[in-house]
């Protein structure tokens, strides 16, 4: 029995030393975050992306109004939802400036005007992607929904499933600032007034850039997640 124990210990020792060797091959870490924080970030990012898809889904959902007042309320709600969705983005999806400083004396020397957060879309059969400012993209969705341009049917966006999201490792970009990507699949589906699925729709892959700002407070670490550019690629269309 003692002999077996000794052999087992020997095997474990070699296994440990080999895995340590393997670890030597791995390179420098890409961030300074512990596993608990990484886990929290992963959850926060997924929640934020899900929130965005649910806002988008609510904006384009067809709602019937019996009178003018009801119609106005629906339109107002859509506008508020659009604003809520924009609040999820870095700089509220608006344009922003980056000041360039002289590295020697720290004096500002130039200002770069950056475009707003963009939604890059690519459709089946057209390899050229189209860039639209996020605010403009959402406004167009609100306009489409208000005008009932989705004739006869409403557009249902199935909210992305937690398990279908893929989250990359956060990469450090500044003090307490990190960037990462989230991948998910989204299905746009035609449904009728009773939410019965109709033929027609498409499936898109989406890659969202997420910015994470971490600050230490009295109550522990505070996370702020903001969404950045979205790359949407239509991969399947059905009629």
């Amino acid at each position, binding site marked *: 029995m003692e002999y077996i124990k000794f052999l087992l210990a020997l095997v474990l020792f070699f296994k440990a030393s080999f895995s340590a060797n393997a670890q030597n091959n791995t390179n*420098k870490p890409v961030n300074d975050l512990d596993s608990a924080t990484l886990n929290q970030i992963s959850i926060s990012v997924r929640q934020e992306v899900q929130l965005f898809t649910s806002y988008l889904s609510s904006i384009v959902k067809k709602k019937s109004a019996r009178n003018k007042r009801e119609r106005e309320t629906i339109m107002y709600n859509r506008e508020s939802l659009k604003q809520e969705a924009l609040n999820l983005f870095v700089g509220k999806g608006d344009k922003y400036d980056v000041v360039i400083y002289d590295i020697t004396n720290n004096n500002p020397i130039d200002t770069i005007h950056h475009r707003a957060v963009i939604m890059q879309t690519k459709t089946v059969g057209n390899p050229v992607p189209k860039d639209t400012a996020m605010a403009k993209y959402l406004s167009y969705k609100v306009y489409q929904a208000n005008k009932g341009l989705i004739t006869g049917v409403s557009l249902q966006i*199935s909210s992305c499933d937690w398990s279908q999201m893929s989250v990359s490792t956060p*990469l450090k970009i500044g003090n307490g600032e990190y960037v990462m990507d989230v991948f998910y699949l989204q299905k746009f589906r035609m449904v009728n007034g009773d939410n019965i699925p109709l033929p027609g729709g498409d499936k898109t892959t989406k890659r969202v850039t997420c910015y994470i700002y971490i600050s230490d407070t009295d109550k522990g670490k505070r996370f702020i997640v903001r969404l950045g550019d979205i790359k949407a690629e239509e991969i*399947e269309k059905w009629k």
Partner: protein
Amino acid sequence: MKKIVTYIISLLSFGVSPKAQTVYFDEFNMPMDRARVKLMDEFITRFNGKEIRDERYPDRMSNILLLFNRFQFKSEYDSLFSEAKAFSETIINDSIYLNYTDSCWFAKAKCYGTLSNKNVEFFLYLFVEERGEFMYKWAIADAEGEIFNTSRSRKHNELFIMPNDHENSFMSLKRITNETSRFIDDYVKDGYEAPPLSVFLTLVRCGQLKIDYVSDVEFFFLQVPNYSFSVKYFERNDLNLGWLINSFNKCNESEKVNLLCSLRHVYNQNEDKAKEHVVDVIDEVNTEEFTDLITNDSSRFYPNRSIGESVVGRFCNVLKLWWETGDRDYQKKASKECAGKNGKKCEISDRLSLQLAKNNILPQDSSYNLRIFWKGLETIRKKKEVKLDFSNIKQTGSCDEFDVISCSICLSGGMDLQSEDIFYVRKKDSKIISVRSLNE
């Protein structure tokens, strides 16, 4: 009877409800979405065996094979598939892992843009670069495309700067830029080729070149010994989709170093000086001790090091392994790092060889080739208490032809000797051509 009815109803309900669910969610093909390698980060995780595609394939080997674009194999018996298996085995046996921070992987992005309102296509090569503690960035390393080929192969006889132009303060320089700007290359000295990256930067800075969109991004990895492979994104109605290994090729380590050096333009900066075969002493770079060059891995590829450092690192490693084990294979490996058959053309005149000659172990001579040097070393190795150690391998100079590497060699126990040696490594074939002592 009641029981039977309940049973039938429950059976029917089980039969119907899942079907209804399937109809509604059928567009989300779960196995397909699970199999899809969605992000490059996910590719690296699966390659490293930290994540598996599904429970049916629990081992790393199967997961690596699943990362291949299977459409490149005709069948299971395809020779390419056997090669893919060998490639995967190398990864497993050599414990190769990919890391985001590795310097031996790069991206090739196909860019579509406009140059003076004309549609153009070109490639940009990007590398990961460190920009602070735990911080990295992608940096453009090179550009490739027809639009960057500015130097003409044939010059026009009619266009040149007049031989007497020096007398009138090169007045015609104004004319060549205003009147014959299209043929500006005709006025450049023979043999000059503008680096594509410089051309790219100039065109962008002048506002002439604009990128409209980027597509077809391909990642190249050089971490696997004797192989290089590329990864591309595939979108199709199949379980083999996402970021997959598009191609893999046999590639020796010196080819990899040359490729990386050419892409990063590491030693092309002092072109004129290099042409005169002048060795510049580099003080500002590579001053740290490269302890990572001394490992027990004899065939290691050093991604962050120059050709010379990699060669000397490998040479020292195999020499140390031979010293410790007496295995002649290591001797052969060390000889392979030197010029000529069995290192015959490698000239050694360091302190150790002179000491050996002094003790009549080696014949009296000013320099020795590696073959003779082995005999001297073998004599000392037999004295078991003598230990051989290498340290502080660093690059001290470089020119067009060779890298200059310094290395401390220490013999302790019975024969105490401390020598600071200089290795000259020919860049053309990555071979050590000469070893001399710095503190002669």
